């Protein structure tokens, strides 16, 4: 794939609809992209592509299809939609944002609203409005009208453009980069695997990471891999008011390899091997310094009789918001880093 094609692929995947539990829309697009490549789908909806390598150790490479979003739990008499969150979203990034709501026939546009600043008392202005006091306005004027368009249990996600900006297109802004970027890299890698691959490979597009790391759990149990690589995005905290020691990683310095997060202590030999492989191939990579977050590795490494785990994350600003910001170079380097690891796999 050319740079343009890679950006086009990422854009297409990011703009697809797929909050946790409602991954079927983005899953459909991924299946189309797989074309002639054989795949299986398990009971939870995880998509698994097996690239056999006889007698070789099993390597599972995974990315999750779901994104953070909202689930409608009530329709008011006035035709507003009350909602709950799917995954961790800061209520401060919700208010005033456009959303796409799963309707009875196709998607419908909406906006997240709350009491305007004019109507808030002094106390309310000092506090963060909780999401329970917000609602989605879909332009319906009555309960009946809203009920004819959508229903409780349907989900919603941010409606936000995919934008390339900065000098020579150095940065990308979009919703759902977490973790469509991993999905895009898996699709890119499928056409580029070395002939004598030293692994029995399983590429997995998982569901329900944002709530409970559930999809990866059942896939890992079914595959029983020796190794796993989780492709992800990680928060970076490279903001002016964060001291150097609390910053997780740096945009543009390559993908971040985790030593430890809140769900996993990564296999040290695997981490060192990955850093060495990156160096050998001249691919940028950095260590994720500050301990934060968690990902599918948390459930995979504890599966069956244990899996040696690695996580590779593209550093992402403003994660879990309508505007994740990443470095284009970091995105493009992710496939190369995974390839470097696979190519040197015999030494692992």
């Amino acid at each position: 794939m050319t740079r343009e094609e890679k950006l086009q692929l990422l854009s297409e995947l990011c703009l697809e609809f797929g909050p946790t539990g409602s991954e079927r829309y983005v899953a459909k697009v991924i299946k189309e992209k797989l074309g002639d490549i054989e795949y299986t789908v398990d009971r939870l909806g995880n998509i698994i592509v097996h690239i056999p390598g006889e007698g070789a150790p099993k390597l599972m490479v995974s990315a999750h299809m779901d994104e953070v979003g909202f689930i409608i739990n009530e329709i008011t008499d006035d035709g507003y939609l009350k909602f709950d969150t799917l995954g961790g979203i800061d209520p401060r990034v919700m208010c005033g944002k456009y959303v796409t709501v799963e309707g009875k026939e196709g998607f419908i546009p909406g906006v997240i609203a709350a009491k305007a600043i004019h109507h808030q008392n002094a106390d309310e202005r000092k506090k963060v409005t909780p999401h329970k006091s917000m609602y989605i306005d879909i332009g319906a004027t009555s309960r009946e009208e809203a009920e004819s368009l959508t229903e409780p249990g349907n989900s919603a996600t941010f409606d936000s453009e995919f934008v390339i900006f900065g000098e020579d297109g150095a940065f990308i802004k979009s919703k759902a980069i977490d973790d469509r970027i991993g999905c895009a890299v898996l699709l890119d890698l499928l056409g580029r695997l070395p002939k004598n691959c030293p692994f029995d490979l399983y590429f997995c597009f998982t569901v329900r990471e944002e709530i409970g790391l559930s999809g990866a759990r059942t896939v890992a149990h079914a595959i029983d891999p020796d190794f796993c690589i989780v492709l992800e995005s990680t928060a970076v905290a490279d903001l002016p008011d964060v001291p150097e020691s609390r910053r997780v990683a740096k945009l543009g310095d390559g993908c971040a390899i985790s030593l430890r997060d809140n769900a996993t202590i990564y296999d040290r030999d695997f981490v060192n091997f990955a850093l060495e492989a990156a160096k050998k191939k001249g691919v940028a990579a950095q260590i994720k310094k500050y301990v934060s977050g968690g990902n599918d590795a948390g459930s995979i490494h504890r599966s069956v009789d244990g899996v040696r785990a690695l996580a590779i994350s593209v550093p992402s600003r403003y994660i879990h918001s309508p505007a994740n910001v990443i470095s284009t170079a970091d995105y493009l380097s992710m496939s190369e880093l995974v390839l470097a690891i696979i190519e040197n796999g015999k030494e692992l």
Partner: protein
Amino acid sequence: MLDIFKKISAAHGVSGAESDTAGVIAELMTEYTDDIRIDNLGNLIACRHGVGENRKKIMLCAHMDEIGFMATFIEKNGFIRIAPIGGINYTAVALTRVRSERGVRGIIAPEAKTKPADFRAENFLIDIGAKDEKEASRRVKIGDCFRFDNDQIKLLGSRVCGHPADDRIGCAVLVDIARQLHGEDIKDDVYFVFSVQEEVGCRGSKTAAFAVEPDISLAFDVTATGDTPSATPMACELGRGAAIKIKDSSVICDPTLVDELIEVAKDKKIKYQLEVLLYGGTDTSSMQMTGAGSRAGALSIPTRYIHSANEMIDMADAQACADLAAEYIRRGE
């Protein structure tokens, strides 16, 4: 057992970096077991085959890992920022000596003027005596783990203190059980599992139990006591014998197994006490619930000042745990 405990306790083994400890234990266990292996996560699994018909699988488990700190960042002035590994009581560890897996020594200190009530990982630093960042980064790499640098010392009677008792004393008990059973025919298959990553959520014992599929499982770990001034009331004391666990916050032990252990202790006149731990979990729960489940229990070693650099135990209690378990295994079912 004291010598073995000291030897195991001296090895580095912060959660996720237990290989030094595994090496020391593997050397001790090779003589006493039929096969020995290390799994994907780093658990050390040694097996003694039984000779009985319809033999069962008994899994004995003690964790090799200890709490500690991971270096996350080196400041310009050479101080090292840390992330905690396991449950840290910052008041208890302030200004304690630490040592890295590469052997670099230092102390862990709060930032000046931090009130004890505000102690958190974010305001603690490790000082290795470096002049600046350049000197520090030659000796410490991001990701290096530090452990408490406190050798075991003998106090009055059979009491010992240092770091870590949690859970190298359990590991020493397992080695002693294997030693006691060496050369004897035993009825059941016994798996001696030295697990990893207990302090961060009982992760290792889960995958080890999946592989072993035990019928009966026993954890060996430390437990709190109620025998210090103003302690939270708890019927568990140093020197009163092996503590047969009835429950902690992660598990309710198999009541039949508890009764069987009490019976063996009474028969053999081994000192025991009963343990109900109000907080804290152990590998017992992951062995109980992995796969199709097992009949699970635990023998605990009463320990004062848990998760400090000076955990205090009575070696007689540890010996009682080993004697009780060895006798239980001899009897078969």
